[in-house]
């Protein structure tokens, strides 16, 4: 097994009841990269991420993180291994202050010990959160929420951060800001796995991309080398991939 690979998904099937949501999906995420998953709504991207985080259990196949099989582990255990996710729609704790949200990010015992340190790091990255640390998260703007969601993942001192729908509902200027931050965090050695609804942007900001269509991965490659036409075809489910 290649040591560069921090996360590998091997041949997984995920069902919702009798409905096969993901079929035979395999993917590798190289340590230190920003890897993206592209696909239309309903292609199974979120299901894949939720499954990696242990929120869904695959019926077949396995998920390996840093050489350790984490398939079927409880989410709280997976977080302790160094994976952390900013879910779709940011899901900040609305009734809690920004600071409390961040403290929740460092809930796992290992990160709890270093939380003042991590908090400093986060405030350096996102000064706006420092300004609003005592405000309830419910009063934050969309962009600030997404920043808080990402900051919250950093608080767990992760090796891999997963961002589901990182730009959903945000203004272009803010999206650029967020990608700048992602890049900055990535440069500190944290790997990213990202879903973005916009194909072009996704490819632009990542090192490697996977394209999903109806629950399967149909195309993959170094992001800048992916043939644009084929990505489009895949995205729109043109015959070859359907």
């Amino acid at each position, binding site marked *: 097994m290649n040591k560069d690979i921090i996360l590998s998904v091997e041949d997984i099937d995920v069902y919702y009841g009798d409905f096969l949501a993901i079929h035979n999906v395999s993917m590798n995420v190289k340590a230190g990269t920003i890897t993206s998953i592209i696909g239309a709504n309903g292609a199974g991207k979120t299901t894949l991420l939720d499954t990696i985080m242990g*929120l869904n259990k695959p019926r077949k196949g396995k998920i390996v993180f840093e050489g350790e099989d984490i398939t079927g582990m409880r989410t709280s255990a997976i*977080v*302790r291994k160094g994976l952390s996710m900013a879910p779709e729609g940011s*899901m900040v704790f609305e009734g809690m202050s920004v600071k409390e949200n961040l403290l929740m990010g460092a809930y796992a015992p290992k990160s709890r010990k270093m939380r003042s340190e991590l908090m400093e790091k986060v405030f350096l990255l996102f000064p706006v959160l420092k300004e609003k640390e005592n405000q309830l998260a419910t009063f934050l703007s969309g962009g600030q929420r997404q920043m808080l969601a990402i900051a919250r993942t950093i608080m767990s001192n992760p090796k891999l951060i997963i961002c589901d729908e990182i730009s959903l509902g945000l203004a272009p200027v803010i999206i650029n800001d967020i990608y700048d931050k992602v890049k900055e965090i990535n440069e500190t050695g944290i790997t990213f796995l990202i879903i973005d609804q916009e194909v072009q942007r996704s490819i632009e900001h990542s090192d490697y991309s996977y394209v999903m269509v109806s629950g399967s991965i149909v195309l993959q490659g170094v992001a800048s080398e992916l043939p644009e036409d084929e990505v489009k075809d895949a995205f729109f489910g043109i015959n070859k991939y359907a």
Partner: protein
Amino acid sequence: MQLLIQSIITGILLGGLYAAIGVGMSIIFGIMGLTNIAHGNLMILSAFFVLIFTTAMGVNLISSILIAIVLMVIIGFLFQKFLVNAVIDKGDTPALLVTFGLSIIIQNILEIIFGADARSIRSNFATVNVVDTEYFSISGAYLTNFIVAILVIAALTLIFNKTDIGRAIRATSDNTKAAELMGVHTKFIFAVAMAIAMVTACIAGFLVGNTFVFYPYSGTQYLIIAFGVVVIGGMGSIVGTLLGGMILGLAQLLGAYFFGTGNQILSGYIFMLIILTIKPDGLLSNKKRA
């Protein structure tokens, strides 16, 4: 005039007891979205525990309450872990039915063991008037209820706001999926919440037993009070429970003063309906409407 002052004071003090009755139910609803039909019965079960320890086994009152609390915490934890957690992912109704089943089981076991007679754990202190003036008097039981209720609410507020486990409970209540993603084992948090609710149920059970008589079937009566308190105060809000309790207590006593004692309970619930019409989520709800 004296009677009015007395009604207001008694109403507020009774409100404290009501808050203690409602707070456990509010916690469970706020965190799990579960309506615990057995809440009143669990209170009465606690009252019976305290009764057994003090009368049959001769343990002093404070120790009896503490032992009862430990027992109730264990019962609550097991109930949550093995029954409620097993069905809570399947929607609201199965979990609701589980608590309904538990309420029937508790009632019937209590009746088999103790018969249907009225019981009371009135301490000597309870029936004494600790304050006795020209205008009003306060009995030991009512004063105890009020002080204990305030302490319970204050302790809960502290735990929920200042401790890691408390924050995890609030986070779970706010967004269960996100809490899970933070590394919180939410099912364990549910069990902790149930255990905390059991502590409050046990304290409320003692207060009720110290103030009024109770029967194996009294649980339902207090369940309805808990509903009233929680609905007025706002589901899931701890401070709201205190407010809700006092409003319900005052509404009942003032209702009795103005419309006759026969209308005491009725006026409490009419007031609840008025509040529901104006603020459907209760006064201090922490749940947002979609």
